[in-house]
């Protein structure tokens, strides 16, 4: 194969996933082009990872008690989830999926509002404009286009904000992902597409999803700069996202990041992962645990003490307890609210339908 021009090689990801810290927590030589985030940020990341993991366990527990209709756990993806939240400023926009509740908790969203979707009281419980966070998206890959569009709105106004769009490995197969990369590139907008490749789309393993050398190699086909990273190495994920976000913020256009990680739990609590994967595979990934890896690294660097670890665990416990308590209260719902926001004003027909329901409810009560 002949040599490739610079406008090609400059877009390709590294041949191997970027990594700072090995599975056992020892730091290797810093990968070329990236710098390790400050100890303070790593310390903060650790705190949020511990909290995020605890929140995640709590949410899964709530499904067993019937307090949540369903919950897709992000266990194993803590490095990605927390780095996504930390890489952004408060007024940057985040476009999450159903799996990214942990990232939203790390962003500071109220966990109970956040859970309205999975609790079944409404489709989205938080205020996207107040939180700069789009509703958690279910139709796969559709949110990447919204992210590109919102980033275009930012560009058109000459603001310095960026947009981060989350998507799974499976979602990259949808046509909308392709169109989003292309629109983002053509309009040169400040958006980072962050693929959490957790090895599975429900039961379908990556090998049946794509034959790409890595998903990050999709970038070059759109003229989008790309990188792949060890998704269980918080230091690496945060460093690469920092780089990508800075690139987008300074007008460099979109950026595609693929993080190689693993979904430790089933797709959701309703799924039975033993039908399609070996326990042994899951065990192998346990060795790559992102929380322990960062913990070891930070301890070795002297940034994290025994007391810190205990304090973070206690804080997480307290957070979970508060969350649990609030979720145990029976939520209030208003059936008439079904008609309130279909349009800015209910149409005459909807107003009449609301009256019908109101009468029914009154009859049931009276």
């Amino acid at each position, binding site marked *: 194969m002949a040599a490739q021009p610079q406008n090609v090689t400059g877009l390709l990801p590294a041949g191997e996933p970027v990594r700072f810290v090995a599975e056992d927590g020892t730091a290797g030589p810093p990968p070329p082009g990236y710098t390790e985030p400050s100890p303070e940020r790593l310390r903060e990341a650790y705190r949020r990872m511990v909290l995020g993991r605890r929140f995640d366990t709590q949410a899964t527990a709530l499904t067993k008690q019937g307090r949540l*209709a369903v919950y897709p756990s992000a266990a194993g993806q803590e490095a990605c989830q927390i780095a996504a939240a930390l890489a952004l400023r408060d007024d940057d926009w985040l476009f999450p999926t159903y799996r990214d509740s942990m990232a939203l908790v790390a962003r500071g969203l109220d966990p109970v509002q956040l859970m309205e*979707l*999975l609790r079944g*009281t409404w489709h989205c419980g938080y205020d996207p404009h107040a939180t700069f966070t789009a509703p958690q998206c279910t139709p796969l890959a559709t949110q990447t286009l919204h992210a590109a569009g919102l980033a275009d709105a930012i560009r058109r106004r000459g603001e310095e904000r960026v947009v981060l769009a989350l998507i799974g490995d499976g979602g990259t*197969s949808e046509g909308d992902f392709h169109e989003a990369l292309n629109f983002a590139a053509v309009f040169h907008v400040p958006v980072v597409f962050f693929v959490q490749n957790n090895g599975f789309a429900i039961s379908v393993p990556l090998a049946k999803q794509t034959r790409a050398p890595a998903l990050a190699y999709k970038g070059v086909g759109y003229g989008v700069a790309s990188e792949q990273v060890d998704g269980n190495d918080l230091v690496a994920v945060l460093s690469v996202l920092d780089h990508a976000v800075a690139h987008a913020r300074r007008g460099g256009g979109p950026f595609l990041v693929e993080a190689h990680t693993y979904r430790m739990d089933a797709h959701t609590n309703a799924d039975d992962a033993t*039908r399609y994967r070996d326990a042994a595979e899951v065990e192998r990934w346990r060795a790559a645990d992102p929380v322990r890896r960062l913990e070891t690294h930070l301890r070795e660097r002297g940034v994290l003490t025994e007391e810190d670890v205990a304090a973070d665990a206690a804080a997480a416990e307290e957070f979970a307890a508060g969350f649990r308590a609030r979720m145990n209260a029976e939520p209030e719902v208003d059936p008439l609210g079904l008609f309130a926001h279909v349009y800015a004003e209910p149409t005459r027909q*909807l107003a009449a339908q609301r009256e019908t329901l109101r009468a029914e409810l009154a009859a049931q009560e009276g």
Partner: protein
Amino acid sequence: MEQLTMAQALNSALRDALKDDGRVLVSGEDVGPLGGVFRVTDGLTHDFGEDRCFDTPLAESGIVGHAVGLAMGGFRPVVEMQFDAFAYPAFEQITSHVAKLRNRTRGRVELPMVIRIPYAGGIGGVEHHCDSSEVYYTHTPGLRVVTPATPQDAYDLLRDAIESPDPVVFLEPKCRYWAREPVSFDRTGTPFDRAAIRRRGTDITLIAYGPMVATALAAAEAAAEEGRDVEVVDLRTLSPVDDETIAESVRRTGRAVVVHEAAGFCGYGAEIAARVSEQCFHHLEAPVLRVTGFDIPYAPPKLESSHLPNVDRILDAIDRLQWDDQVTLAAQGSVRDA
């Protein structure tokens, strides 16, 4: 006869089709080793091999478009869309190709394929998992659209659909997946394009399909206690519709109510109401009423019971069918949302 759930009956139909016809292929998201999120394809990959039942990449337009090519190449694909709203990415393939390729080529290219879509609600599913999308397909000429209400029909209709030379959109009422009844594999039941009268009655014809047939039957029972003898027609085939069965019934009873979960506005019930009003004009003692979902996006789980048509709403509609004392009132016009 075995007692089977609807999901199991569908599984049996797929199995028997795979056994009987080497051209049948089953594909979709998670239909392989997992057996589908509703287990309708449970064990098929294990028993027939990855060649016959296989997972695809996660892209619905891809799944349908790929199946179009397989069908052009001599196979008979049966594809699964994981949930109703996740068939929308395939809308162009379905509308512009699946529905039209035979017509486009003067019948030279046949597309014997089945698009299975679990649809409608009632299972506490979150947004995008409960759409009643039937009209998008029934309004599209070139598609057959069918929906079973019982395990037996699930078996029969799916076998028929797979053998049909026409593309079939096969709508599976999620909330009935776990309904159980004895299922015969003899295929001696109702023919493919015919409705079934599930309950004989003389006073009112209740017209329903898929998820709402059970509700309609329950309403008929309740109405019987109030002294009204309700006939229940299960449409089974939404396109083409079985005009004869419907018209014959309504001409006998003189009153009709259509029931479905989908939003009422431009819903399937509009077509039925319009046809019945036209075909049975002089037999109707009252306007054809519709009991449907509200004209809103599907409700979140905790509110779906407020949204879904239920026995009470059907009984209310029956009460509004201008029995002797009501004519004056009703003459002022009385639709729910007017």
